[in-house]
């Protein structure tokens, strides 16, 4: 799935944050600016890293550490942006919509 569009990455990221938070709602119900660790979503630091490895498997890419080291992630969009930027597909939309 390397070369995935931002929309595909967004759906995948939202599926993973929902699973990590043990929530059973559709990914489309999650806003891009939803905090990763707030009132709705409960993603912890180790769970976040585990999600990155699952994203690697799903997207068939290897995410380099320098994308994440020393950086903070507040919202779902923060993660989508970084991953989409790394795997930007032919639709050319690695950036925000």
């Amino acid at each position, binding site marked *: 799935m390397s070369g995935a569009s931002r929309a595909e990455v967004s759906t995948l990221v939202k599926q993973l944050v929902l*699973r*990590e938070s*043990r929530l059973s709602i559709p990914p489309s119900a999650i806003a891009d600016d939803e*905090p*990763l*660790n*707030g009132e709705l979503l*409960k*993603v*912890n*630091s*180790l*769970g*976040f*890293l*585990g999600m*990155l*490895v699952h994203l*690697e498997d799903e997207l068939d890419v290897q*995410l380099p*550490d*320098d994308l*994440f*080291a*020393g*950086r*903070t*992630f*507040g919202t779902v969009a923060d993660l989508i942006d970084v991953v989409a930027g790394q795997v930007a597909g032919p639709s050319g939309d690695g950036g925000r919509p």
Partner: protein
Amino acid sequence: MTRLPGRWRSVLPSLGYELPPDLTPDSSSGPITAGIPLELIRQSISRREYWEIPEPVLEQYRRYRPSPLWRARGYEQAIGSRVPIWVKYEGGNISGSHKLNTALAQAYYYQRAGYSELVTGTGAGQWGTALAAACAVFGMSCTVFMVGHSLRSKPYRGSLMRLLGATVHASPSPLTDLGVLAGSGAADRNSLSLAIGEAVEHARGGQGRAFCIGSGETYSILHQSVIGLEAIDQLAEAGATVDTVVGCVGAGSNFGGVALPFFAAGPGATRLVAAESSATPKLTRGIYAYDRTDATGTSPLEAMYTVGSGFAIPPSHSAGLRYHGAAKLLSAMRRRDQIEALAVGQQQALTAGRTFTRTELVVPAPESGHALAAAAALAVGDGPLAPSRAGILVCVSGHGLLDLAAYDRSEAGDTADQAADEASLRAAVADLRPVLDLDLLDGAR
């Protein structure tokens, strides 16, 4: 001749189940930082069985590996053993313990990920020394918070870490909010959990800094698999077989390292016996629950056998075993009866250590004395566990040359066993959330 393994071997594909997921503590909210190199996370959750050891790590391993394995005939004779006892000795490196096996790997991955300083907490000082050595090799700064009581009783541990270039603080320290709180008497003092908590807090305060941990995490147990992989080859070379593998457990990395390659090679074929301290009897008297890994309370909660992170651990000469919980990997295996456990008092451990010193001419760390005492019980059929029938492999995880004061006090009759009392244990776990069958199903997703 046994060669240094070129790959670590993961037990995860052999388990037949997934580990329960961690939980986010209620007290946690706000932005997330990715403070661990992704390769370590891959090693913790992937079902890949073999992992190539990076050449820079292998280069360092070659300084002291393969570590020796021998049949301890003198010890067998002294205790009246009915079966052969084989010793795998991990004390022959600058850290004096197995801890260097994962310290080198972790420093390599953190340095490659762009970090310049590693911060950690240490109990007996073996892990702190190992990390200081690894940071020296890979050109990183190192800051160590060492349990204050332990540092004062073993000042040369501090000297060695400083010689290796590390900055060493006695915990509780005035550098962190947690340390100040503990110093005021408002929180637990002198525990490994507190030292780790201080390290976590300190690591958050600087650019390029990362907290790293020496035991308990699944990746550190993977790195320790070199112990068991070598032992399997060495026993085969000697034409020997064992039916029981023994190691001491603080959080579980040396035990996991020596024992789990046997499980991976044939689940259930070899008994795996964890020797824990009767002062922190998590595997024999604790509960399987979600608990904190350090005193900050902000880290993810892990499913573990625990006596409670708030449990006031009695004083002990085995600071490396003074930790409230067992690794989540070992805890999951304990839950499924894939490992056994035996609690050992410190006097019993030091007596075993003294006997081993006089018969094998190696001074074991007091922590390793617990493994030797457990091996003796299994070798003569004394105690609650069934005896070994074919032979025992015991990991002597470190040397005790910086623990001679403990042996002196034991020799002078100045060492008391303070087993955890039942009421304190129950109180310390009363508020923990037990691991439910539902959590285990979640882990199987």
